[in-house]
């Protein structure tokens, strides 16, 4: 099964991306990504620019309403995601537990929606 590992990081983690903490921060992610790849479970994924660079759009009666910032102002924000393929939720949770953000933020695991019946 395919799973998305959604990485929710606190502000303090986003801050570590630059400055004195950056080497340690990135080393953690590099090592994790390498481990996921070497295990042969990596399907895809991406890191995301910080939430204050996000632009959120809603359409009301055909009119665009754009707002500067992420969709919700919460303590933790989406920092990136991995797509992995493993046999079951147990293995997906194992990978989530190894993710560097598990200790500082939270890691959400969701199964990827199978293609709708009409598409198959």
């Amino acid at each position, binding site marked *: 099964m395919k799973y998305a590992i959604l990485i929710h990081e606190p502000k303090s983690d986003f801050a570590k991306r630059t400055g004195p903490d950056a080497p340690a921060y990135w080393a953690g992610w590099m090592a994790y990504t390498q481990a996921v790849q070497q295990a042969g479970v990596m399907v895809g994924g991406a890191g995301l620019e910080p939430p204050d660079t996000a632009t959120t759009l809603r359409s009301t009666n055909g009119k665009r309403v754009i707002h500067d910032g992420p969709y919700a102002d919460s303590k933790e924000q989406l920092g990136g995601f991995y797509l992995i393929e493993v*046999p079951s*939720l147990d293995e*997906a949770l194992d990978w989530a537990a190894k993710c560097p953000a598990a200790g500082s933020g939270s890691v959400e*695991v969701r199964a990827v929606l199978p293609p709708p019946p009409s598409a198959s």
Partner: protein
Amino acid sequence: MGAENSNAEVEVVVRDSYGRLLAWLSTRTRDIASAEDALSGALVAALEKWPIDGVPTAPVAWLLTAARRRLLDDSRNESRRLAILQELAHLPDDSTQTEVAEFPDERIKLMLVCAHEALDPALHAALMLQTVLGLEASEIARAYVVSPTTMAQQLVRAKQKLRVAGVSFDFPGPVRLAARLPALLAAIYAAYSTSWDAGVETDHRLAELASEAVLLARFVVKALPTEPEARGLLALLLFSHASRVARFTTAGEFVPLAEQDVNLWDNTLIAEADQHLVTAAASQAPGRFQLEAAIQSAHCDRRRTGETVWEAIIQLYDALLSLEFRLGAAVSRAAAIGEANGSSAGLAALDELPLDRCRNYQPYWATRAHLLKRSGHMTEATVCFTTAIGMTEDPRVRDYLKRSLDIELRADDI
């Protein structure tokens, strides 16, 4: 063969094999809800056909074949259908011989799925009662004092999550098993405790819930005979179950353990519990349930000796608390110290507990009240009794505390 006989026959087959059939089907489809639908469809078909054609020689195999056919028909999605076909193909086709005795018992897999960490622990036991024992959501709801609709919705949602999130129904490896077993045992223990905690009006069905919990604990021991904590849990439940009759007088008055009439305890259950405890102890891996069972076993020794060896009980509580701090165990330890070394020693043990956690804990106030009463501190005891009474849900225990308070007030008058 009359319809009535067939209904009775279906009931017997269902009672013995529902959980087994559901476990077999759902571990192959990874989908509890569809397996339940298929199985209940097969049961309806049995109720229609058996009165006419007679009960088949292998009723369980008949049900399995019928349920399997339904599962295949119902899986509209072609890719899913192929996957299920492959999984279900391993069944000896249209078997007429596979009966319960030879039929693989895979209920432990289903139970471990029900206790998966991806589900709210509050739902673990409810899900087990429904899937493994075939209880209706409404019956489970009554035991847990929630509305049947709420319970049904929660169970549907839990099963949906297990399917969509892709939880594995395979028997876990040793590391995962070690991680998941405590949740499984805790869920069974919680189901049993629920049956103790409730009030008079729910008595009957809760007594049934207690028996169902014992049954679940038995399944775990049967499937995992070398897990000492599984036996510890079963022993603990059997000890508690053995004294259930002595817990209340015929007039419905609550009797605390130390004052119970030992002749009312069920000796067969106690002997069985002791046996499990001995077997578990051989593994030399003590755990919470084994120690709690050992405490119950020590209380049961009063049958033979006529007195309770409180020192031994205190030692067991010490061992229990060294594993993990539990307020309930700490309060019971203080009560035991009060018995062994006098009320002031018991009160001193209570004073060591974190007051902020004790403030809303009924056993703390009840224990404190009894210890104060015995040491002659009537005014303080009255305050504690009143607090304890105000926190008690079970009217029978409330009445017991009121009686203890009344006796004390009368003693005060003299």
